[in-house]
């Protein structure tokens, strides 16, 4: 049975820099492989609808006639399945998380 087992740890951390960051003032660094946010680039897209079909949550909507691609950010689970299946590589997963979505509206591109 030990007494003051915590003191060594407490003392060590009292003398070192805190491991936490001051978040809103100091934004978190994105990690290399992080799945942050889905980004769509219009140039290559052929509106084939594969991404919308494969999306497990039904967050994507593609309209071939009007050449529209839409995403419901609150539904998107950033799994990256659409990026994998996209034949034209017009979808990309960025490492930064972007701003939070607050409404259920679809974002049209």
């Amino acid at each position, binding site marked *: *049975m*030990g*007494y003051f*087992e*915590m003191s*060594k*740890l*407490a003392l060590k*951390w009292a003398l070192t820099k805190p*491991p936490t960051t001051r978040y809103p003032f100091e934004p978190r660094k994105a*990690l*290399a*492989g*992080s*799945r942050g946010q889905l980004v769509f680039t219009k140039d290559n897209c052929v509106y084939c609808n594969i991404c919308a079909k*494969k999306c*497990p949550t039904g967050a994507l909507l593609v309209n071939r006639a009007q050449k529209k691609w839409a995403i419901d950010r609150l539904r998107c*689970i*950033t*799994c*990256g*399945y659409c990026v*994998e299946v996209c034949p034209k590589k017009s979808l990309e*997963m960025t490492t930064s998380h972007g701003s939070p979505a607050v409404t259920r509206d679809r974002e049209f591109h």
Partner: protein
Amino acid sequence: MPRTVIPFGPQHPVLPEPIHLDLVVEDEKVIEARPSIGFIHRGLEKLAETKDYVEFVYVAERICGICSFIHGQTYCQAIETIMNVQVPPRALYLRTVWGELSRIHSHLLWLGLMADGMGFESLFMHSWRVREKVLNIIEATTGGRVIFGSCKIGGVRRDINAETIKTILKDLDGIEQDLRDITRVFLNDRSVKARLCGIGVLSKQEAWDLGCVGPMLRASGVAQDMRQQGYAAFKDIPVEPITRTEGDSYARCAVRCEELFQSVQIIRQAFAKIPDGEIAVKVTGNPTGETITRTEQPRGEVVYHLKANGTKNLQRFRVRTPTFANLPAMLKVLPGCDLADVPMIVLTIDPCISCTER
């Protein structure tokens, strides 16, 4: 002596998730505990009827937020067994690594909650500080902090390159040192021992009869670990179950502390032996057949019973999660304990209620 019924939960400071117990107490002693669960039944088993079997891996991963990867892995293993898919060895090793990383982060989460539950705030903070380092490794390699999303039927989605393996191994050294620091407090400190020793004792026979799994079973002296069955890369990496004989809360804490180091060793061995090659094979067609697959989660053995009839939707998707199996034992050890020890006993089974109810 008059009896009083004290409601415990569904909202309680030690409970991250809702479970309700009606505690019948006589003075300060608990006489009986009546459970009521089912507050967060989400019907995920029913969802198998509408989601196809390929995308269902995302649902399986979301059964639990903490052991998510092993849920996904078990689901994939079950489908691969039914469809007779040969998964490339590199994928099996990567699954093992991620599975053990998730075990470390789950055990650290539990140690933190445990310290928080007994009022040891600084120890709680330190447990989670170390956990954050593990989560960073996980995020850098899979892309997610708790929902890995890196397992798919036929293999894995992402590879870890040699450069990253080196950095992970270096980080692991630091993590292991941190683990040594905090587990020393958990295992030796007088105030921790006063809260845990001799509380909620479960004998070896009781643990077996009540169908306990995982650390709960091993803390009572039964050496059973599903990793010994040799799924994924465990056929090349032997795992010796960590057991204790006391069967009290302290033993459960000690088993989890030692498993942390075991997992670090497994990751090191896996990286030393990892073969080169493909990380996934293409899977076509629909599954036909039935299987019962068992793997070892941080909380214990998980059982997947899958039945497929050749359509793209599974006929039956049934999961028996470890907490479900450990609940009867918790109800068994509660009568006779002090009211003040109830939170400790409830925490030592590592309750994961959303897992339990699915």
